[in-house]
């Protein structure tokens, strides 16, 4: 089904690179889940672990970038291979940023805990955080399967996360007006909400990269309907990132 390169070495290099990228994705996913857990359980220990994990994410980003540079230099890729490698670079950057946001959430959880305010609307935030973590997971699934249909649904879901964020900000404002003592904790919550909203955006960027690899169409900064219309008639590119098609 997929077209093999003349050099099978190149194929395995691409497959390895994708594996490393997805492993990094797995780490970022677990960082997000842990940040969510720190928020739910108000646990200092978990927040600490998230901040420590951030260093590993950074190290993986550098390792992947190095591998990527080597492949581009040696193989001088074209067409779909070039798109794949460009997308790997983009996805790596977005994952690293999502990891940063997870660490930021952990930091804010600690500052909320030290302020010791419990009457704030934490449960709304948990829901949104869950949604964002789910989006990152879905976007990585879409990348592993090179699945544009899922990628399109992620573009839709990100709109839901943004809407959730707007609603949350309005709610926080009423809390702050009611009781000015909660302002400093509310500001920390606002940072968390913003981080969650950004994580949603990173998931969306990853989904757009998947569309770029498979369809060769750049749907960034387009509305959903435009993006859908643009890729509707383009056939999927044949590309191999490690999946074997058994007969």
């Amino acid at each position, binding site marked *: 089904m997929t077209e093999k390169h003349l050099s099978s070495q190149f194929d395995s290099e691409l497959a390895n690179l994708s594996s490393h990228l997805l492993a990094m994705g*797995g780490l970022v996913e677990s960082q997000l889940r842990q940040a969510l857990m720190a928020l739910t359980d108000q646990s200092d220990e978990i927040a600490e672990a998230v901040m420590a994990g951030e260093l590993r994410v950074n190290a993986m980003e550098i390792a992947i970038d190095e591998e990527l540079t080597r492949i581009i230099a040696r193989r001088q890729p074209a067409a779909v291979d070039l798109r794949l490698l460009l997308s790997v670079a983009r996805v790596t950057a977005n994952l690293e940023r999502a990891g940063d946001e997870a660490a930021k959430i952990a930091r804010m959880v600690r500052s909320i805990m030290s302020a010791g305010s419990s009457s704030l609307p934490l449960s709304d935030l948990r829901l949104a955080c869950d949604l964002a973590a789910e989006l990152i997971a879905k976007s990585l*699934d879409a990348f592993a399967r090179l699945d544009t249909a899922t990628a399109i649904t992620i573009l839709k879901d990100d709109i839901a996360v943004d809407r959730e964020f707007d609603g949350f900000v309005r709610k926080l404002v009423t809390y702050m007006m009611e009781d000015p003592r909660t302002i400093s904790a509310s500001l920390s919550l606002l940072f968390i909400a913003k981080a969650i909203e950004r994580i949603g955006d990173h998931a969306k960027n990853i989904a757009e990269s998947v569309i770029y690899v498979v369809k060769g169409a750049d749907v960034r900064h387009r509305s959903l309907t435009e993006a859908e219309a643009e890729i509707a008639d383009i056939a999927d590119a044949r590309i191999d990132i490690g*999946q074997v*098609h058994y007969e």
Partner: protein
Amino acid sequence: MKLLVVLLALLLVFCVTLLLVNRWYARRFMRWITDPATNPMPEMPAAWGLAAAYTRRALGREQALANESAARLDTLLAALDVLPAGIVLLDNEGRILFCNAVAASHFELDPARDRGQHIVHLVRDPAFVAWCEQVSNAPLELTCHADAPAKSIRLVAQRQPYGDDCSLLLFTDVTAQRQTEAMRRDFVANVSHEIRTPLTVLAGFVETLQSLDLSHDEQARYLGLMAQQTVRMQSLVADLLTLSRLEGSPLPGMNERVNLHELTTQCAAEAHTLSMLLYGADAQQIEIETAPGFDLAGSSAELRSAMSNLLANAVRYSGSKGKISARWSRESNHGARFEVIDNGPGIAPEHLLRLTERFYRVDRSRTRHAQGEDGTGLGLSITRHVTERHGGTLQIVSAPGQGSRFMLIFPQARVLAE
């Protein structure tokens, strides 16, 4: 001589014809054999016909065997699908050869599309990825968040190598097991905590009495406090025994008739006494209707502990200005209901669901607001057990600042007309 030439010529013609005819048959045979399943078998005489018939028979046998083994494989895979554990078969590179329905739902895999996909590309939990890379076959415990993100599932993964460097991953759901373990741990921790508290107080007073020369009055006061603590421990042990008896014994039979009038009168008297002890006479308004006009089938001792637990809670938590009313009534579906209504502080919604858990307290400070000796934290748990053993339910309606309403609802089968 001429005859010989003619004969030779005829022979030649005959041979050529034979060759042509055979060639024609061979072509028909070849055309058929390229796709014997769809092309009709040609009618051919002699050896060609025989060859075609034998070939067809051999092909048929082959096909039957292939069908049979395909059917066997399908049955096997269908059996793997209904297995309650998740199964994933991996090739030598860690790519998915097969995954069953349970594994697919755990990890949101698509059994058809994800064949040939590296498992670590889709199950990206760092612990799992690291486990896949190592060689040891020690089991791994991991959490997955499929389906409902709020609900996480605990899985134990085991790996068994088989065949040509392939491996079988087995995922067992241990969520319920882990929950039970946590509950047991909590229970033991709670019981020891509840017993240790009065014991510490007792030990302190014993030490004081032993080492200090106290006046008679002081001694009497300390002994009184010690007596209170022993009563508390006694009631805790009694409640624990009641609970374990409730769990271990057969359900109350339908033959024993419980005289509700008598039982309610007794419970009402107890409630009045308790209220008087705690707040003095006439502080609380207690109205209990003691003549329901019907009886129940069940265990009198159990029902009594359920009712008196509810009444005692109402008396304790509604304070000196409490208004408590309790009554039996019939449900519209011919069942029966015992309800206790108080005007106490009420219960916040987040506590309502957990209220009947053993040792669950709305909060520690609230326990201190309750009057008299501390409850054991087991009362509502006992009440719920008793009600459920009688086929009924315990319902609680409450909101902060609005008082509470506790209802025992029994099914029609338990109700006996007077």
